[in-house]
């Protein structure tokens, strides 16, 4: 972004990578897949790079409001200084903070989750999947992340992207507004689960496997990690893949 600003230019959209997308090796693949699509379509985008900071979401959900407000203050200052208007992100937690929580603190941006962004690119004909996509004839199930689904009511856009593939989309028993959490939200990603009879991600992955799908499509880097672990727990990692929708699209260009 600093380079755009130095040249006195504005990108079409700021790509907010998020911490997982930046540092987590598995999630970096989602980041690269998404930027590959943006490059292919010719979307002029920027990233904040080293100036990007955690939105503060895990701190806020854990109860550390002070830390959240600090991060929010800094991020909003950075974004406002660049005059950012439009943001796209691959993380539903960042998306939720941008859409619902930063406006109250002076950060007003048009924000999109990457699945909605991809759906628009497909609808506009800018993204065309080669031969019906890389998953011809396979069964796909889709996992609603809490903060895209229940949190913000986005259930259809990711499904529309998946329908562009020449595949069969099967729903889990718990889907859409009744979808079940992967177990990572509320800062659980950063701590051991409380004592119980099983792990949430094991349960959720089992529900996904019950559909008989060989691809579990996700829209969140944390869900992707949790579900991958869940699939491994059932020793199904050779036959069933957990992929972000951006990866699926990138593989089909």
């Amino acid at each position, binding site marked *: 972004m600093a380079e755009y600003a130095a040249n006195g230019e504005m990108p079409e959209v700021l790509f907010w*990578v998020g*911490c997982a*997308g*930046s*540092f987590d090796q598995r999630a*970096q*693949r989602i980041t*690269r897949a998404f930027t590959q699509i943006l490059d292919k379509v010719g979307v002029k985008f920027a*990233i904040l*790079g*080293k100036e*990007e*900071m*955690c939105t*503060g979401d*895990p*701190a806020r*959900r*854990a*109860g*550390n*409001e*002070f*830390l959240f*407000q*600090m991060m929010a*203050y800094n991020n909003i200052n950075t974004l406002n200084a660049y005059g950012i208007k439009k943001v796209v992100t691959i993380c539903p937690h960042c998306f*939720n903070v941008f*859409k*619902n*929580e930063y406006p*109250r*603190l002076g950060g007003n941006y048009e924000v999109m989750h990457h699945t909605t962004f991809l759906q628009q690119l497909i609808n506009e004909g800018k993204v065309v999947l080669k031969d019906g996509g890389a998953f011809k004839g396979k069964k796909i199930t889709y996992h609603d992340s*809490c903060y895209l689904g*229940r*949190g*913000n*009511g986005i259930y259809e856009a990711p499904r529309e992207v998946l329908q562009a593939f020449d595949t069969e989309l099967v729903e889990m028993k718990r889907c859409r507004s*009744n979808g*079940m*959490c992967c*177990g990572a*939200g*509320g*800062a*659980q990603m*950063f*701590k*051991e*689960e*409380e*004592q*119980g*009879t*099983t*792990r*949430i991600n*094991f*349960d*959720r992955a089992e529900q996904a496997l019950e559909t008989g799908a060989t691809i579990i499509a996700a829209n969140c880097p944390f869900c992707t990690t949790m579900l991958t672990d869940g699939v491994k727990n059932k020793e199904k990692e050779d036959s069933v893949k957990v992929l972000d929708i951006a990866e699926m699209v990138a593989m089909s260009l």
Partner: protein
Amino acid sequence: MHIAQQILFIICAVIAVYFFAKKVKEMRRNVLLGRDEDLSDNKDQRWRNMVLLALGQKKMFKKPIPALLHLVVYAGFIIINIEMLEIFIDGVTGAHRIFAPVLGGLYSFLIGFFEVLAALVLLGCVVFLIRRNVLKVGRLNMPELNGWPRNDANLILITEVVLMSLFLIMNAADLSLQQLGAEHYTATEPFWVSSHLTGMFSGMSAATLVGIERTSWWLHILGIFLFLNYLPYSKHLHVILAFPNAFYAKLVPQGEARNMKEIQNEVLYMMEPDKAPAATADATPPRFGAKDIMDLSWKNLLDAYSCTECGRCTSSCPANLTGKKLSPRKIMMDTRDRMEEVGRNINENGEFKDDGKSLLHGYISVEELRACTTCQACVEACPVSIDPLDIIMQLRRNLIMEESNAPGEWNLMFGNVENNMAPWKFSPDDRDAWING
């Protein structure tokens, strides 16, 4: 005789209404112990929510079978209450079925219709009792319901069965008396349901039948007066509070957490000291998050009174489903129990006297709070717009910001966010290293 009955009726009615009103005032006071929160915005949307969610029971229909049974019981309850108007007027004036001569055939139709509803309510309540006690539906048989909550649920259902039976017996006895041509019993056309029950009274004398009819009438109305005064102690209070609770439901997206303006300002003044107002010596620092019910919003407390312990929240909670201690329903039950405890404390002492207890720790444990993934399944599931997550979040804030009570891993995460701008210990310089991957 009639005059005695009339006087007795009026006395009972006055006592019932007086005690109920007194209790309502007390509940209102308890709810207002919560922090102030302005929810008077967007009235159109709020009325719409009330009609759709409370009156229309929109969310109930996610589970069609209980929803249908519930609709029958609810519709029956509301519509049969129209008959209460006549019972009331009869009770005060000493008349018998005052509307019968006025409405003629329509009267018999209406009562017949009420009887069909009464029979359906009766049936519905029996099925509900079977679901609870024989089929043992999972969400209705969890440990947090042991003791009073379970008895409360059964008592409500049994009361409804008894009230409906009395209503039908009363009408059947009435019809039998009409057939005998008893004085004072206005002739009507046979009612749809009770006309099939008159057989059990065949051969009885008019005096016996009057006894049965009067006893049923009295037990029915006294039952209703008692039930009215039972409501404030029961989970059944939702029949009333579902309406205001849906009206005051959260209108912003479920994903949005409650902002803490005081901390937002704290950070602002720290970063831009010129914006800070002059320090006032007498300013008492607010409590961060919630430790006790007084720290919650009044809407959280209204939520607690509105909860009918149906357990839709808990049965969709991923933490609970995987054996963790957290149960959103228990969060609501605990909040109500603590609020009522504080209420009793105020009744006894005139104002709240510190009892050394609090909602956090005393009722809700750290382990429960730590298990929440903030997935909002509980919020989504609640048919009457209760938000258990909002309470969980406020208690979590108190744990972190006032008690510094966090698991070690969270403290590490906080440290990383603060120092490395990411929840993991990576160098901020590597934030864009993925480009080279």
